[in-house]
């Protein structure tokens, strides 16, 4: 009798299975865009062989903000307060800047209640991946408009929205964010590619992912629905991602316009598009977003990339050892030091 082989499991670079990146079972509605984004995060973390114990997951409050419980169980997670996750994330990454921070928020969480904190986070360039799972409504409180809802949109429950939407990407751009992207939960390949690049960024990387709420905002005439997204998505940029651990040749491959060396040594290789759009051009990015905002077009892809701005942790002159792990002698000056201070009083 042949010996039973143990089932074949694919291990990644650090010897983990995809299962090691899973979370607890989701309690979201079946078909919710947020669940599909969780799956993308799992895949990307597995592909890049992130070490789960060196990742932290941060979120506010909302259906979207629940999702960190549904991926990467071996990473510490903190599901904090509604709209105030950015400050918490700032503190956590100051305490330990060696960790990879993945934040998940909702549109209500980020641009309704959280707009101030979001903008100040971007301004400080806190090194982290900031995902907005944008469905244009408050899912968890059952379907009110959020500040990203399109003008003129109608919802059975909330009536008609008369206010202009706040554009997550434009806000980030105006706030000097060095990595701004938009994607669609119905476009898994693009989401994964953007996640990979974003995880290598030096400061705050913002990805605004349209993520349909199947329960409250998925009718076909909603700009945040699967149907609308599939029909209207226009990709504005394309790029290849070469992780730090892979070798890269310095020549541009055909169709590439530029190579952006990311903070962690990986590379984003921008490809030439018919539109000529270059995501390194800040004015172009702002104009594009402004036009999209005005014309309500659904543009996805990498909108802006710039590795120049130092992160908060760099500006703070932090030591290599994370503050949270400093040994006692770095924490408490000596008895003599106290005596000297007192003598000088």
């Amino acid at each position, binding site marked *: 009798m042949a010996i039973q082989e143990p089932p074949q499991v694919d291990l990644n670079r650090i010897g983990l299975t995809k299962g090691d990146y899973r979370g607890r079972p989701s309690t979201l509605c079946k078909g919710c865009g947020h669940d599909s984004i969780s799956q993308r995060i799992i895949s990307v973390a597995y592909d890049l062989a992130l070490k789960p114990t060196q990742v932290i997951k941060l979120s506010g409050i909302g259906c979207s903000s629940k999702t960190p419980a549904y991926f990467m169980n071996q990473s*510490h997670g903190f599901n904090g307060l509604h709209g105030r996750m950015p400050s918490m994330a700032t503190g956590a990454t100051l305490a330990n800047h060696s960790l990879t921070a993945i934040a998940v928020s909702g549109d209500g969480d980020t641009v309704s209640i959280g707009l101030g904190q979001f903008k100040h986070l971007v301004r400080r360039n806190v090194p982290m991946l900031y995902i907005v799972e944008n469905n244009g409504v408050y899912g968890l409180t059952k379907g009110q408009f959020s500040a990203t809802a399109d003008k003129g949109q109608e919802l059975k429950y909330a009536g008609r929205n008369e206010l202009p939407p706040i554009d997550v990407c434009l806000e980030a751009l105006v706030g000097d964010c060095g990595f701004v992207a938009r994607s669609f939960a119905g476009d898994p390949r693009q989401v994964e590619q953007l996640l990979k690049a974003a995880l290598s960024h030096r400061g705050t990387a913002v990805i605004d992912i349209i993520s349909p709420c199947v329960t409250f905002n998925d009718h076909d005439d909603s700009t945040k629905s699967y149907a609308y997204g599939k029909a209207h998505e226009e990709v504005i940029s394309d790029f290849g991602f070469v992780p730090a651990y892979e070798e890269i040749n310095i020549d541009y491959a055909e169709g590439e316009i530029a190579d952006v060396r990311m903070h962690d040594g990986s590379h984003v290789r921008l490809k030439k598009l018919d539109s000529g759009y270059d995501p390194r051009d800040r004015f172009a990015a702002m104009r594009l977003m402004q036009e999209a905002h005005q014309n309500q077009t659904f543009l996805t892809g990498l909108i802006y990339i710039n590795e120049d701005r130092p992160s908060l942790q760099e500006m703070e002159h932090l030591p290599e050892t994370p503050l949270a792990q400093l040994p006692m002698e770095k924490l408490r000056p000596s008895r003599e030091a106290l005596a000297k201070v*007192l003598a000088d009083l």
Partner: protein
Amino acid sequence: MSTITRPDLAPPEALESPVGVNNFSIVAATVNGSGSQTANNTLVRALFKMGIPTTGKNLFPSNIAGLPTWFLIRVSSEGYITRREKSEILVAMNRATVTEDIAKVPAGGVVIVPLEWKIPQDRTDLTYYALPVQQFAKESGANAKLQPYVANMVYVGALTALLGIDEAEIEAALSYHFGGKRRPIELNLGVVKAAIAYIRANITKTDPFRVQRMQATTNKVLIDGNSAAALGAVFGGFTVCAWYPITPSTSLVDALIDYAKDLRVDADTGVHNYAIVQSEDEIAALGMVVGAGWAGARSMTATSGPGISLMTEYTGLAYFTEIPAVIWDIMRMGPSTGLPTRVSQGDVLSVYYLGHGDTRQVCLLPANMAECFEFGWKAFDLAERLQTPVFVLSDLDLGMNTWMTDQFEYPTQPLDRGKVLTAEQLAELKNTWERYGDQDGDGIGQRTLPGTDSPYAAYFTRGSGHNKYALYTERGDEWEANLARLHRKHEYARTIVPAPVVDEMADARIGIIAYGSSDPAVQEARARLANVGVKTSYLRLKALPVNATVVDFIRKYDRVYVVENNYDGQMRKILQTEVPDRANQLIQLAHCDGLPLSSEFVAQGIVNLEKEQ
């Protein structure tokens, strides 16, 4: 039932501080933004260095320049440091308030006033010394912009001459103030000397107030509570401070920035072994602190009333997710914006119960510089041990005024980082560890820090319902079990927070309870009360929740006066719920007009209330 021998017969003067050599108060009335702080600090320092117990208190307005400000200097041979109701010597340098200021000087007092104002010297019970202040300023050679600054030095000179302050100490104090920089030292000293010469030449001293050297300040130093707190935090190993400017807490962080730069930067690499971030508001400040505390930093913030209000939601989160955080509340007068530059102990109730739902916060109550320093480091030990926010309720009087203090004691205990599991411990425990369990019966679970290299390390933190494994739950029994454990933790906290200081007098039948900056007034009042036969025992609270000593003390006395600087008698209310069997014997003695309590208020208040018994 009282042992008081007819307090109603004690003359009110008997409750007041003695007045004479080395015993009096000075009030310098100036305009803020005129640089009078240099003059005032010089005086305080010189007197202090003469070995005479001296304190300085600044009563300043909430604006930048041009409004009335008063500086109180008290010298007390007995070593009392509380504010007195009366100031025998008025330095009247503010034209806008001079009439009112003079009206307040007690009979027998002294008024120093610019000659140029030609103030009518119509109170015959006062001694007036008029000085050509403006002339001195002009003659000093300082440019026009600096002249008001220089003018203040005139009164330094005048007081030096009139009180007999050692000129060498004035010079030393100026040198200290200007960090040894010759130009300003000389400029100012020139004015001081000219004023001294003027006094000697033109004025005959007729008042009884003067100073003489003592040895009562040997080994002591002068400092303000915010600097002491900052120094304590630096020695407590703070690693993250996030803050938002607000009077009167700003100077705490200013001092922290300075001390940390000196003491916590690696000399060789220049890296900072800490981060101090000015946030966009107080919500964000505490958010950063909580995030940092969660990730393993010793993190802190400093704020005042309005900031505390904004921190309510994050406090609830930190309380319920059990994350260490240190919050200094430098109390100012509320409600609302209130009087930003006036003191009160008005946040006690709101901080103790801060947060919706069932919450009770741990509060430390420093009363002096040594405790500001000590709680500066100890607050972290308690926060990490208890895994909870720890509030330090200091106030404007402690925080921003200059106090003499014994040298600070180097921390007596090594850093207590609390129950943090290592990868090795996790390898043993595996899935059995309980983030929100109660392994030790103290109500405190074990936590792990992000980055701990173990597949068992991670747990999920949330402000919503969780069971002992930190898993989401809506089960009533798990919810209740968690609250019961938090309750046990609160009971345990009673046993490890700083214990009260008790000073009992033989045969006393009445007790006094106070805390924080009300302490000096009580200390002096007790001495005065004893003079008129009112014996009192005293318990000074150093923390909430209270421990068994407090309960015993309250039960022991016929009546216990709770002395505090607020309107509602906030601490009394808390104590009434803690010791309900004596709730009716806890008597409110509270006052709140923006000034530090005086011993007269306390002594007279107790005498009056005792009469009613």
